[in-house]
């Protein structure tokens, strides 16, 4: 095992590195660069960060875009509101997704495959169409209200669409499979002998669940929660289609900066800060995950 193995290893390491440089590092630097420039009416709509004046390189770095975000409470409120919506959605998805993942993992083989297929099945239809379908279900003269009115449960149609409730329904529905799949992968590996031992030692089923299954499934819970929490913070489409004017999320603030104000520099600064804001909860979850792995 000499030259060939070494080159093979280098190649294997180089592929993800090149990927990260091309698709994360470079776009990140481009956004950073735009966030430090000044807007103007031109193609592209921002001033260059550096130019040559009389043979000297001159930098035009501008931190005003960041300062501007501090002065207006809108941005901080939008970040906080996004974090709140993401946190509540993740918890809701966890309460619904955990029993589902548990049930699938405990099912005998032929049924388990079918159940897993059913979890993945919605992905075969466009995400956008599925969100549109929710508009049809939730709207004032929609399916849900028609059923509830017919059944005599309500007298007046419920106004759900264009409220935060509709946003939560849409987000939890859309992201549920991302939580179920890693959780299932974790739960299915659970060693049955541990549960048998716990049972033999006199623990009830409920106590066994909380003392054995739940702690052991922690890595799955964290992995699944991260897959829901992180994309939901930056979610734009679901609140845009199902949400009302009260739904404040950073995605729509970013849209306004970019399209309505055509201020690419401030839009880039908002995106940079969003990245930083997201790193904090991710670090917390990571450290929780590491602790979970040690158990």
């Amino acid at each position: 095992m000499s030259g060939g193995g070494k080159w093979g290893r280098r190649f294997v390491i180089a592929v993800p590195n090149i990927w990260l440089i091309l698709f994360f590092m470079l776009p990140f630097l481009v956004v950073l660069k735009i966030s430090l420039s000044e807007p103007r009416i031109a193609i592209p709509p921002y001033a260059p960060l550096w130019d040559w004046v009389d043979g000297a390189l001159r930098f035009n770095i501008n931190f005003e875009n960041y300062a501007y975000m501090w002065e207006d409470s809108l941005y901080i409120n939008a970040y906080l509101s996004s974090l709140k919506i993401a946190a509540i959605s993740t918890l809701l998805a966890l309460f619904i997704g955990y029993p589902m993942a548990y049930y699938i993992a405990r099912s005998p083989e032929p049924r388990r495959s079918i159940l897993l297929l059913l979890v993945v099945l919605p992905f075969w239809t466009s995400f956008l169409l599925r969100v549109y379908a929710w508009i049809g279900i939730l709207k004032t003269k929609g399916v849900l209200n028609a059923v509830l009115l017919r059944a005599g449960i309500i007298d007046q149609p419920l106004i759900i669409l264009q409220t935060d409730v509709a946003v939560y329904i849409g987000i939890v529905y859309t992201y549920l499979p991302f939580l179920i799949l890693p959780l299932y992968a974790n739960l299915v590996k659970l060693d049955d002998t541990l549960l048998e031992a716990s049972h033999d030692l006199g623990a009830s089923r409920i106590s066994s669940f909380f003392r054995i299954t739940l702690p052991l499934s922690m890595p799955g819970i964290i992995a699944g929660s991260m897959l829901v929490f992180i994309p939901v913070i930056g979610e734009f489409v679901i609140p845009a289609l199902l949400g009302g004017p009260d739904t404040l999320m950073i995605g729509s603030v970013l849209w306004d900066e970019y399209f309505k104000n055509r201020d690419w520099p401030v839009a880039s600064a908002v995106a940079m800060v969003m990245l930083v804001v997201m790193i904090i909860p991710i670090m917390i979850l990571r450290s929780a995950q590491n602790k979970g792995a040690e158990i």
Partner: protein
Amino acid sequence: MKYRLTTALIALAAAGAVQAQENVLRIYNWSDYIAEDTLEKFTAATGIEVTYDVYDSNEVLEAKMLAGSSGYDLVVPTSDFLQRQIAAGVYMPLDKSKLPNLANMDEALMAGAAAYDPGNTYSVIYMWGTTGIGYNVAAVTERLGEDYEVDSWALVFDPEITAKLADCGVSMLDAPTEMIPAAMNYLGLDPNSTNKADLEAGAALLESVRPNIRYFNSSQYISDLANGDTCVAVGWSGDVFQAQARALEAENGVEIAYVIPKEGALQWFDMMAIPADAPNPDAAHAFINFVMDAQITADITNYVWYANANAASMPLVDPEITSDPGIFPTEAAKGGLWASTVYDARTDRTITRLWTRVKTGQ
């Protein structure tokens, strides 16, 4: 002047994917904004193949134009957006020797459009319209009484009236540069004022009716009005007429009407223009000239129910459309129409910020 999120997202995803080919014309136009057979007829007449993409907001078009190298040969921005894009160097001057059908155009309307594009150097009017109010006749009568005449912006700007309508749904366009000036106009202020106090007064009026507004969206109201899901919408003329037509087709008993309020309304022009870096400007000129043919423009108006600026086409347009004061305003109503202004970056930011406050209370 239409907005549909889906198509925006699809268009964004497809950005830049257009490849240079032999004699192909790449058009980027508003969704639902052309007759069904226009492109077929163009290809039959000229042999030029057409790739046709759609967008649903000026903002999306503008972002693509300002990024450059869009690959499109012909786009249709609204006049005020066009003016700013001309300043950014987005468009090429038209070669009028290739546009003999310019003779068909209505001189007064082209002069109106020249306020944005001096001398009509870069653009020709495609269609034009107004921003007024669409409403469900029966639902509004039921709530405001037989005697209430819908002819004023009070229907959407008076908190007492909107409170009575809130339960059946009132919507507004998500277009701050149209809504805030409309509110200022209702207050008796100049809708084109850039004075911060005036803008704030307009926004404050909108905030006062905000609790009674179901949503701010620029396309959803078409189907919601048609289905009876909402009953009053500030909307673009042709879109409201589309809602009216859909309700008639569905035979669901919903009657939609459009009114240009007596206080006045915004008049806008959607303009055909050629990006400076268009791969096939000759084909784009050929298309502009083709659309200015009297019959072709008449076909488009008959299909989309937006007014055109082609004087020669008028006899060919459905009398039902030409006689509708919501589409072709009466001489008296024309006096109340105002044109939008182009704001400087600072005013733009003020307006967007005020709009966020109106919408979210932040």
